[in-house]
């Protein structure tokens, strides 16, 4: 499939802002939606707007069926063993919070250790930090080096026996598949192997990873994998928590009420089985109903011809940024960078120019990028800057857009200097 063919699936990409053709390079925040997703959302709103699971009537049955088809589409897309392992949440953030709370209640005691990556999105940092504060546990960091690569020696030390010979107290490792700032594909399999060898489960924040990498959770052998629908072509307000059944069964519910109960008396409640145990309240059934179309789009995005063109487009952007002596691109990839590949995300700073100013001028030229701390303040500070500019691409972005972006960047920098 060609880029142009894929691109025509997305009505928003045809749009204009301020009378200029839109160049949408903020895909790591939200991807544009294909017409199939937009239409499904509209159709479900018209024809099947009723509460899932509860009622016997036709509309409810249709909504419930569509919800479960959404679950099956996600299960198949990430290769989970069963539908019980696919929990719908409001987003990736809610998915991580669910694990931080429920796993924390079941398994984390004072003095235990949770390990998080240094380049995590706040959504995969703050829930663990707060868990540790509640439980009197210690938060330790898997650091990144100046190239943005994990220092796995440090993880090895954390997972190893303590100096007094006692067993490691690490209870869980939580890391990003792809950092939303650095855009590098992290060696999560290696981390999972190291952690499992020490008997420690791993949560992978897949918000970016599931978009750019072919994910098979069973092959990866992660214990939890979390991501959002709105970054993966689906309607917003949706998130997925994949968890291995053995963990999900051992964890208490996070939120209470709605379909997640079995029987309720005024004194006590027994809870429903998986996946409903973790789906309190009414799920976002209209948005979840778009998952079959969204996963089909994500599958199309992995077409070999399209991916080859996308790699070329990303490389052009990376090369153009690297060619400028006044631009600092964060995170090293390429032949000299070992296993680290860059996946559609370039975060950078321009000497002597503030990222907010650049983003503001680019916006007026029709170019949408992200600027600032990008919900990942520790890693931004690690590199000693107050913010960055991020261009994040998907396979519907073109070489022409990259060229236009670089022209706009030149023009904006010239205005600001």
């Amino acid at each position, binding site marked *: 499939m060609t880029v142009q063919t894929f691109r025509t699936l997305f009505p928003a990409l045809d749009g204009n802002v*301020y009378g200029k053709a839109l160049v949408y390079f903020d895909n790591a925040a939200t991807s544009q939606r294909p017409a199939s997703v937009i239409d499904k959302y509209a159709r479900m709103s018209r024809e099947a707007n009723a509460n899932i699971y509860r009622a016997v009537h036709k509309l409810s049955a249709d909504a419930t069926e569509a919800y479960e088809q959404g679950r099956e589409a996600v299960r198949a897309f990430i290769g989970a063993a069963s539908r019980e392992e696919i929990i719908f949440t409001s987003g990736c953030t809610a998915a991580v919070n669910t694990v931080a709370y429920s796993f924390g209640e079941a398994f984390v005691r004072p003095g235990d250790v949770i390990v998080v990556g240094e380049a995590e999105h706040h959504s995969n940092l703050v829930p663990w930090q707060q868990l540790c504060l509640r439980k009197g546990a210690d938060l330790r960091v898997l650091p990144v080096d100046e190239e943005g690569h994990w220092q796995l020696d440090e993880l090895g030390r954390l997972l190893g026996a303590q100096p007094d010979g006692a067993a490691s107290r690490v209870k869980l490792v939580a890391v990003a598949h792809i950092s939303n700032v650095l855009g590098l594909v992290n060696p999560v399999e290696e981390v999972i192997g190291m952690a499992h060898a020490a008997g420690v489960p791993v949560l992978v924040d897949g918000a970016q990873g599931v978009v750019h990498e072919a994910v098979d959770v069973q092959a990866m052998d992660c214990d939890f994998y979390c991501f959002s629908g709105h970054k993966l072509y689906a309607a917003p307000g949706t998130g997925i928590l994949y968890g291995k059944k053995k963990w999900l069964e051992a964890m208490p519910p996070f939120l209470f009420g709605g379909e997640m109960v079995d029987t309720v008396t005024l004194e006590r409640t027994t809870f429903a089985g998986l996946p409903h145990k973790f789906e309190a309240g009414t799920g976002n059934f209209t948005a979840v109903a778009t998952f079959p179309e969204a996963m089909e789009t994500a599958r199309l995005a992995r077409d070999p011809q399209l991916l080859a063109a996308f790699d070329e487009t990303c490389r052009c952007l990376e090369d153009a940024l690297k060619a400028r002596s006044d631009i600092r691109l964060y995170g090293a990839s390429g032949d000299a960078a070992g296993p680290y590949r860059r996946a559609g995300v370039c975060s950078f700073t321009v000497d002597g120019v*503030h990222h*907010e*100013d650049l983003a*503001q001028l680019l916006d*007026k030229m029709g170019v949408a990028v992200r600027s*600032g701390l990008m919900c990942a303040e520790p890693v931004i500070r690690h590199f000693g800057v*107050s913010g960055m500019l991020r261009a994040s691409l998907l396979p519907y972005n073109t070489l022409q857009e990259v060229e236009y972006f670089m022209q706009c960047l030149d023009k904006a920098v010239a205005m600001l200097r």
Partner: protein
Amino acid sequence: MTIEEKQEELVEDFSMYDEWLDKYEYLIELGKALPAFPEEKKTDDRLIKGCQSRVWLDAGMDGGKIVFTADSDAIITRGIIAMLISVYSGRTPEEILTSDDAFLDRIGLRENLSPTRQNGLLSMMRTIRDLAESHRN
């Protein structure tokens, strides 16, 4: 020139440009023309809260009038605060407190800033008024 006359002049200046990119260029020029702000005055108590880029605002009294000086690490923000200073510096606290800031809407500035910068603009105006209030006898 009164505050109102200065505001009117700015509205006219901005109306000469059709494209917002050109209006930004004008703001950037205002920012570049803002006199240097002493490094030792860049303290946390002079930082305006609610701006994503850092903005320092200082106020002193000279013959019953408030003199504002300011700086920012972002040039567009520097332009915005420079524009506000051109309106409000050298005025008595009463003049500032009895004026309004509808000229910002007439310029179209509020709607053409990012939401974070809109908040920043609000914070700048609030700080200018707070400083005027605190310098009133």
